[in-house]
């Protein structure tokens, strides 16, 4: 049967679901912002040119939207899903509220929003959805990312 819900049969720690954990903070530095922007091939002077950014709308270098992917945080809550031999990014949903700026201290909270299993044509897949919320040192939420990771047996 396609897409049968198998979640009840999957072993994982249900106590972490929906609980926010502090996963640390990050200083947004010029070095990391420009390093990230160059690696992507960005050309926008607001990310790369300090002098141009000074005259821009923020008065300081800002980070490209996807800069969050380069932020190292502490490991978030682990639902300890006992399934599969390999895992991949399945999907990602970002909401951008305002840019991160050089000089910001960004703090992040993470929760495991859902764990669910599906069995379809290619076998069973177990999805873990994590929600990470990033705030700046003014206490404003700057972005939210919901990432879904899928576990499966290799060779399926």
């Amino acid at each position, binding site marked *: 049967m396609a897409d049968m819900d198998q979640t009840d049969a999957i072993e994982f720690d249900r106590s972490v679901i929906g609980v926010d954990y502090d996963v640390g903070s990050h200083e947004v530095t010029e070095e990391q912002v420009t390093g990230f922007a160059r690696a*992507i091939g960005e050309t926008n002077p607001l990310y790369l040119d300090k002098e141009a950014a000074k005259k821009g709308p923020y008065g300081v270098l800002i980070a490209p939207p996807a800069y969050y*992917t380069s932020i190292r945080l502490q490991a978030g809550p682990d639902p300890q899903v006992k399934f599969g031999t390999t895992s991949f990014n399945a999907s990602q*949903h*970002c*909401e951008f509220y305002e840019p991160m700026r050089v000089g910001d201290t960004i703090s992040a909270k993470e929760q495991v929003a859902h764990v669910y299993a599906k069995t379809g044509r290619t076998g069973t897949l177990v999805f873990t959805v994590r929600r990470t919320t990033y705030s700046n040192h003014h206490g404003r939420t700057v972005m939210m990312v919901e990432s879904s990771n899928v576990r499966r047996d290799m060779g399926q």
Partner: protein
Amino acid sequence: MSQVYFEDVEPGYELTPLIKEPTREQLDAFTKVWGTSTGRFVSDEAARNEGFTGVIIPGNMNMAFLAQFLTEWAGSAGKLKRLEVDFRRWVQPGDRLSCVGLVTDTGTEDGENRVILDVYIETQKGERALQGTALVLLPNKP
């Protein structure tokens, strides 16, 4: 770069694709900034052990390409508000990636000019590496 205005777009409007041809050097620079030093994005051997022909591009890097594509289009007076994608296929350094965007809906709500787009990254083989939707805010024509 010229600014695109809300009045310029309607459903069916297609953005000029952004072509990305990520090199191994760019991938290495990305994983370095990311702080990843092992695994399928860094080591050909690790990637082969997982059945790939060599290192693959992280989904996060593709996500960053799409974000670049949309923010460049939106211009300095526009804003990328939401990006939502499904990762579908692996891509590797040397692949030619086209970032594609198509406006599907527009509307004004709470004083914001909202543009909804279908977005995807297609390889030179015509396969979609990731696809999803985006919300971009555009300014009114002065």
